[in-house]
């Protein structure tokens, strides 16, 4: 009984996750009950693409109606419902959950922790969404139909909405809660759960952009929640926040809405910057040029997003000083954005470039997003905006930043990381076909809309003057082409998920020759739990031991 080893301490330590059985559960309950960040990331992405599909079908109805002047397929009231719901579904159902899904998958793997900080909240935040959108979409079948006042829900027009109005407000609240839970989870995870050695300024840019995005979300979601609540009380409880007859101010709604709305636009593009900043260095086989300036640029863009909102309201009638202030502050955004574009190009400069599908989408992002940026600059000029306002030029502008911008980045991210997620490589030939068809058709769809807008075609109309016919026909052809091309993508992705066409799990841990970062140090497919033992992160952002031992597949 003599004891040499008087003290043998066993510390048990919380890794920040609660219940986890080691493999996934079986069957449907796995997906309902899961608190695993990878499962939830997958759910978010599947949800997002379902919504992209539904919103895409709505856009096809819109484009079919606009193929020719006159009314062919839908009556004007239904047309307005489709434009409104297309926007709500794409923004809140497609783009945002898409980015949250990517954050779920990648943020823990990029900073070397085992899961998000609040896994059960994560589950709850996701499962709010299917209910919110089922409710919202069901309004098409109510008497009076779906909301039709535009996604910006301006009073007094939106107050004329019928039975679908309270459902719209409730759905927006649910989406808001879901976004906030996601944002809180990302912030807490990044601040509290980074692996040793993963200092803030060593974090991959995707993590940085998501941290700043999450801050933006937390700052502006209460504004949206308050705004829609005031609409609700104005309609049903006799308040007059925005009712001029009762002493309220309808223009103030526009201020409040865009105070939320402009940062929201950046919420939908900052993570895209992060994705592109991850992909370009990999395929240029060079470190990202100007890392610190990238971080500062994103932070400046986030700050500026709070002081530009009235550029959506130049024609409302604000004082001249206001017009000037919002014009110049908006133009200022071009500076940090220019820094980012410069850095991406400088990263590619003299790199040893290869053009795999993720890289193609990333390069197209840089090029086409810049076109959207330039049309945005045109719109920022107050005097010019008096002509452009409410025309198809605006439609062309924001679709350029959202589709070849945000959506291309989500597609690029999926091609880039899917070998890591599934262990199976996507088909490169199909990827290239998907890219070229998408890049061509998206320009066929939206470039002519610039001309339509400049010539004076208003947005949100089902019928138009005959001189606009040619460009509208071109645009409609492009839209159908783009939609059909996406089936190549869906097939390619599902083949990776389910191993169709004999795809085998042969992806290496690093996948891409030039890839660096913690996520590439774990095996492909990434085990259900990664980084249960936090890795020690070296100066190059890789685990110090430089092997896959950090992740143990149980």
């Amino acid at each position, binding site marked *: 009984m003599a004891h040499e080893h008087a003290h043998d301490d066993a510390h048990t330590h919380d890794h920040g996750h609660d219940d986890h059985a080691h493999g996934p559960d079986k069957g449907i309950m796995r997906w309902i009950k899961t608190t695993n960040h990878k499962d939830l990331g997958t759910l978010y992405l599947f949800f997002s693409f379902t919504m992209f599909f539904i919103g895409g079908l709505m856009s096809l109805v819109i484009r079919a109606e606009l193929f020719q002047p006159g009314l062919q397929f839908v009556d004007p009231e239904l047309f307005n419902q489709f434009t409104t719901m297309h926007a709500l579904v794409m923004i809140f159902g497609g783009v945002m959950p898409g980015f949250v899904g990517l954050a779920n998958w990648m943020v823990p793997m990029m900073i070397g922790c085992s899961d998000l900080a*609040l896994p059960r909240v994560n589950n709850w935040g996701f499962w709010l969404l299917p209910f919110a959108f089922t409710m919202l979409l069901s309004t098409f079948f109510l008497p009076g139909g779906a909301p039709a006042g535009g996604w910006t829900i301006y009073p007094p027009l939106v107050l004329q909405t019928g039975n679908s109005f309270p459902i719209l407000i409730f759905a927006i609240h649910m989406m808001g809660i879901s976004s906030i839970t996601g944002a809180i989870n990302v912030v807490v995870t990044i601040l509290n759960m980074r692996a040793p050695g993963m200092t803030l300024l060593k974090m991959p840019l995707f993590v940085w952009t998501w941290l700043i995005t999450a801050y933006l979300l937390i700052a502006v979601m209460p504004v949206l929640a308050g705004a829609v609540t005031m609409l609700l009380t104005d309609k049903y409880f006799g308040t007059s926040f925005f009712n001029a007859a009762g002493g309220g101010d309808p223009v103030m709604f526009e201020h409040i809405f865009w105070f939320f709305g402009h940062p929201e636009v950046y919420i939908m593009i900052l993570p895209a910057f992060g994705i592109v900043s991850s992909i370009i260095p990999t395929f240029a086989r060079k470190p990202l040029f100007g890392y610190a300036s990238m971080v500062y640029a994103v932070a400046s863009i986030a700050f500026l997003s709070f002081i530009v909102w009235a550029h959506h309201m130049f024609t409302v009638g604000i004082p001249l000083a206001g017009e000037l202030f919002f014009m110049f502050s908006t133009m200022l955004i071009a500076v940090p954005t220019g820094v980012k574009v410069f850095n991406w190009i400088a990263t590619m400069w003299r790199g040893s470039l290869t053009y795999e599908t993720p890289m193609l989408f990333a390069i197209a992002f840089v090029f086409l997003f810049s076109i959207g940026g330039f049309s945005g600059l045109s719109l920022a000029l107050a005097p010019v905006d008096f002509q452009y306002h409410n025309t198809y030029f605006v439609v062309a502008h924001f679709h350029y930043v959202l589709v070849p911008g945000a959506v291309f980045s989500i597609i690029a991210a999926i091609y880039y990381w899917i070998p890591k997620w599934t262990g199976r490589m996507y088909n490169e030939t199909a990827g290239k076909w998907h890219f070229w068809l998408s890049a061509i058709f998206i320009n066929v769809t939206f470039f002519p809309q610039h001309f339509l807008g400049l010539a004076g075609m208003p947005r949100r109309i089902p019928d138009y003057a005959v001189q606009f016919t040619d460009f509208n026909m071109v645009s409609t052809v492009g839209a159908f082409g783009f939609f059909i091309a996406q089936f190549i993508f869906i097939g390619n992705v599902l083949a990776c998920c389910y191993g169709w066409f004999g795809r085998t799990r042969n992806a290496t841990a690093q996948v891409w020759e030039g890839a660096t970062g913690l996520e590439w140090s774990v095996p492909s497919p990434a085990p259900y739990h990664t980084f249960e033992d936090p890795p020690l992160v070296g100066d190059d952002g890789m685990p110090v031991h430089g092997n896959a031992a950090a992740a143990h597949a149980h």
Partner: protein
Amino acid sequence: MGLLGTISLAIGGFFALEGFWPILPFAGLELAAVGLALAHSLRRNAYREVVSFEAATIAIAFGMAGRGAAAKLTLSRVGTRVVVEAGPYRNSPTRLCLSCGGQSVELGHCLTDAERERIAVRMRELIHPGWRAPVRQAAPVESWLQN
């Protein structure tokens, strides 16, 4: 957090002054949620369980890192058994318990099943000498427990 709170409340406060007060309570609610989440995560990160094996006893201490043990417990080294039992439902996590007579403590609640299994094996090695042949050389405790 301070910055976020300032910005959020400033925005809400400004609109409230303009008469659009419903934004402020949402901002307050949300900040409370952010604060709660941060505090919860920090607290959980600091939680520690320390098990020390003395000649005749096993000392177990629970508490927050840096603040000493909040609760302590001593079991007899000879009479303690290490039990890993299945959870109450299919797929629920296993439970690792040290039982001594009628007393039983659960340990490693926040670990994974596999980690609990490894700790159980190691603890059994350390307890056995009390009533079986002494182990020659106790292997160093796995460093993965001490991150």
